């Protein structure tokens, strides 16, 4: 029982971590919370459902389709709703944030319109395969989710610390002006960041579909808010914090449902925000110095 819940918690936590990574990347570079991230995640989940259940594509192709679709959404988000507001005279610092809220409303209602309000089952024979070790049942899907998220985290960390583009991203995140005088085309880096973050949201979407067997147009909002809670917990714009925060939230939610009152499941994230803001406002891994944005 305990071990099973541990596996469940890690699975959920890994997905949260991927969602939070998308948030944290965009926050690091643009200094705004991308409120549309949850809805892009939802679109990724729907692309997964449509391609596997309706079109009957294999799972790996569904992943690629989801990455491509959410990546394009990310590009459009940056190109149409964020870039026109950047560096303009008289545009409030909060304008891009409002803009992403607009995109989130648009995407939610669009999928509501197309797919209906109800839950869509995510039918995949793959989701049924399980392994029994003693009295514990572990689904293959859970292992895959865990493996994919670990790979993504390691990949992202290496990419950020070792590659030229990754370093350019970090430089842009620290100071846009400095990065540009060092020869970084900051427009390109920002676009790249939003695309990568969105594609990660798409991957998380498919993983959630696989893990919980259902997707709905409303799933974006709660996931978005939890992603926000996680980056507050872990430290805004901090990659390590997003991973740790995701796992902490996933595990605590799972254990609360298993051993406590399942009605409070969604409250955990927000209780955590309250405590972290009171005790350590910069987050677990956040730095104390506020960057004057």
């Amino acid at each position, binding site marked *: 029982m305990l071990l099973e819940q541990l596996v469940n918690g890690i699975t959920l936590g890994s997905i949260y971590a991927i969602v939070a990574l998308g948030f944290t990347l965009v926050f690091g570079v643009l200094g705004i919370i991308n409120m549309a991230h949850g809805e892009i995640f939802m679109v990724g989940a729907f692309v997964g459902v449509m391609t596997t259940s309706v079109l009957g594509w294999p799972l790996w192709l569904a992943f690629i389709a989801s990455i491509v679709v959410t990546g394009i959404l990310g590009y459009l988000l940056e190109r149409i709703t964020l870039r026109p507001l950047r560096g303009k005279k008289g545009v409030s610092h909060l304008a891009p944030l409002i803009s992403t809220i607009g995109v989130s409303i648009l995407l939610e209602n669009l999928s509501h319109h197309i797919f209906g309000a109800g839950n869509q089952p995510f039918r995949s024979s793959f989701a049924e395969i399980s392994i029994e070790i003693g009295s514990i049942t572990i689904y293959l899907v859970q292992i895959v989710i865990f493996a994919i998220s670990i790979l993504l985290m390691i990949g992202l960390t290496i990419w950020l610390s070792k590659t030229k583009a990754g*370093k350019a991203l970090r430089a842009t995140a*620290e100071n846009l*002006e400095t990065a*540009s*005088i060092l*020869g970084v085309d900051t427009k390109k880096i920002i676009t790249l960041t939003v695309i990568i973050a969105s594609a990660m949201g798409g991957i998380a979407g498919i993983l959630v579909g696989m893990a919980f067997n259902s997707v709905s147009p409303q799933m974006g909002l709660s996931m978005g808010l939890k992603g926000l809670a996680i980056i507050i917990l872990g430290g805004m714009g901090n990659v390590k914090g997003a991973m740790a925060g995701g796992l902490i939230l996933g595990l605590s939610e799972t254990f609360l449902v298993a051993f406590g009152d399942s009605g409070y499941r969604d409250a955990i994230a927000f209780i955590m925000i309250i405590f972290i803001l009171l005790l350590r406002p910069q987050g677990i891994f956040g730095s104390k110095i506020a960057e004057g944005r």
Partner: protein
Amino acid sequence: MLKLTNIETYYGQIQALKGIDLEVNEGKIITLLGANGAGKSTTMKTIAGLLKPKKGTVEFLGENVTGLRPDQLLRKGIALVPEGRAILSTMTVIENLEMGAYHRKDKDVKDEIEHVMQRFPILNERQSQMAGTLSGGQQQMLAIARALLSKPKLLLLDEPSMGLAPLIVAEIFNIIKEIKEAGTTVLLVEQNAKQALKIADYGYVMETGKIIIEGKASDLLEDPRIVEAYLGRKSTSDDKIPS
């Protein structure tokens, strides 16, 4: 090499530059002097592409480069070391140096980073430390070394001596001379007018967005207007209070 013609730059509605004409010849150190708020840094930012002039043209090596982005100008050979140094404090010293050579694709980058670290042993010593933990003087050297790694033809230095101890200031000025001797043209903005004029070949003096005096550095050192306003024994504009 660099030629500014009638440049006018605005911050919103406020006009910061009111028609600047300025020329920088290859292989020289040109200095731009003036009090706080005269528009020196604005001029530098306009040349580097961080600000777009409303009027006028910037020509570099005979090409009109007005309104290009900073990253495009860097590729053409203009590197800026901004006021306040602008090092990447959350990246290590060596990563900062690597970012200096960001746009280069040649194989010499590694050797040159080695070379730079030999010239500045303190950077070598601290190469894996976060750049934000360096002292002010070390950060300034890092910022200059980083800009040099982009192999600029023209180096723009905005108040490199600001807030540094006198001994470090002397070293910074030595470095600037070395840079010139190695063949890089330097445009230097300074509050420390005396020191700047000593190493410069030609100088401009700005006041409220305009150039009011220009001439050979050796002449400017003798110019009574400048001696009174910037070099005067009575005034303290010479030795800036470290911030």
